[in-house]
């Protein structure tokens, strides 16, 4: 979706302002927000793509006025309600009746294993590749209303296939509970002038990792 998250080339956000000796967390609640987000994800009711889509659909005003852990927390509350784990009434009241543990509740002893395994997203494919390194491709001029990982600044542009990573879970499907629908993932390289005309810095090259379904022959 052409939502507030789709930031490549947007203007008006000011300087980057990196913070010297930045602390890992800027307040204790940020650490707890990280922890509860990961722990709730481990319950298995949603996947990473649905999480990302919940964040990008918070609305532009909320997205741009919230810190990243605030975005995570707000999206987590959406996901908990959508999947029937917590009610709006419970969130409003700030309390809930005690319940027995969820069968997949993440316990401290399981944390190292869960974090060390991660969630690999590569999948076997039977179809042979449509494109090979060196092929010229054009990204689709696509503007889906749902989740996608083709940024708008790269939609409809000419690029060159650099590498083939094999099959990966397709976020456009997986985010909406429509299955993993794995597709082939390529690194595609774009010349800065192709993307920005002469309004980008000279000599710039950009690459992105794009699914086969995002690409057409050029």
């Amino acid at each position, binding site marked *: 979706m052409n939502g507030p998250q*789709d930031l*490549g*080339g*947007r203007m008006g*956000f000011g*300087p*980057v*302002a*990196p*913070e010297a000796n930045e602390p*890992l967390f*800027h*307040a204790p*609640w940020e*650490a*707890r927000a*990280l*922890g*509860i987000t990961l*722990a709730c994800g481990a319950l298995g009711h949603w996947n990473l793509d649905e999480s990302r889509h919940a964040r990008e659909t918070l609305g532009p005003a909320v997205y*741009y006025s*919230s*810190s*990243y852990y*605030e975005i995570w*927390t707000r999206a987590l509350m959406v996901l908990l309600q959508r999947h029937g784990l*917590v009610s709006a009434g419970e*969130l409003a009241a*700030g*309390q*809930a009746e*005690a319940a*027995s*543990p*969820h069968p997949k*509740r*993440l316990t*401290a002893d399981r*944390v*190292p294993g*869960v*974090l*060390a395994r*991660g*969630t690999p*997203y*590569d999948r076997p494919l039977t179809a042979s590749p449509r494109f090979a390194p060196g092929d010229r491709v054009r990204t689709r001029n696509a503007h889906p209303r749902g989740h996608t990982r*083709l*940024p708008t*600044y790269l939609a409809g542009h000419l690029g060159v296939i650099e590498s083939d990573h094999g099959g*990966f879970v397709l976020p456009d499907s997986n985010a909406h509970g429509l299955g993993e629908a794995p597709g082939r*993932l390529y*690194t595609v390289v774009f010349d800065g002038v192709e*993307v920005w005309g002469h309004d980008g*810095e000279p000599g710039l*090259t*950009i*690459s992105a*990792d794009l*699914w086969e379904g995002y690409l057409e022959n050029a």
Partner: protein
Amino acid sequence: MPHDHHDHDHDNHLEPMDARVRALETILTRKGLVDPAAIDTIIDTYAHRVGPQNGAAVVARAWTDPAFAEFLARDATAAVASMGYCGRQGEHVQAVFNTPLQHNVIVCTLCSCYPWSLLGLPPVWYKSPAYRSRVVIEPRAVLAEFGLVLPAGQSVRVWDSTAEMRYLVVPMRPAGTEGWAPEALAALVTRESMVGTGLPQVPA
């Protein structure tokens, strides 16, 4: 954006968010959905075990061990796993090597994808709309805000992390470090140098 202006952030966001997250954790704990001890362990992992020291060890080894550097270039996921670095937000890794002709910079314009297993949690600037919007159109201007001015003859390649590939920049080894042990070299490798917004420290 909020974290770019910290004092302002304190006034407007921190205390309501503190209360909101406390209430949420209480509800989730009562309902048997989270275990506060597990949250402590997650926080401890990223505070003490998984951070940019991991990526720095990989870079220092690549500088000193040509066979490992070749392995890292060919199959970074396996190469970093051989050093024990794997897992969440590092399931699929590619290493990109700076050269005198090309400097590499990593971004995620669509969210904040970052190689957690090698660099830990991303800094606020990496997640900020300012960085994510600008580095794909004017990277040199952005790098200058980090104090990094590249030579005119070195082109810039920006890698937008739009899928589950996670990128580690391998900076060029600083001059004057001939014969240094990997442990001493790793101390020169900053987080920013592995994202492409900085260079390794120069030995004194």
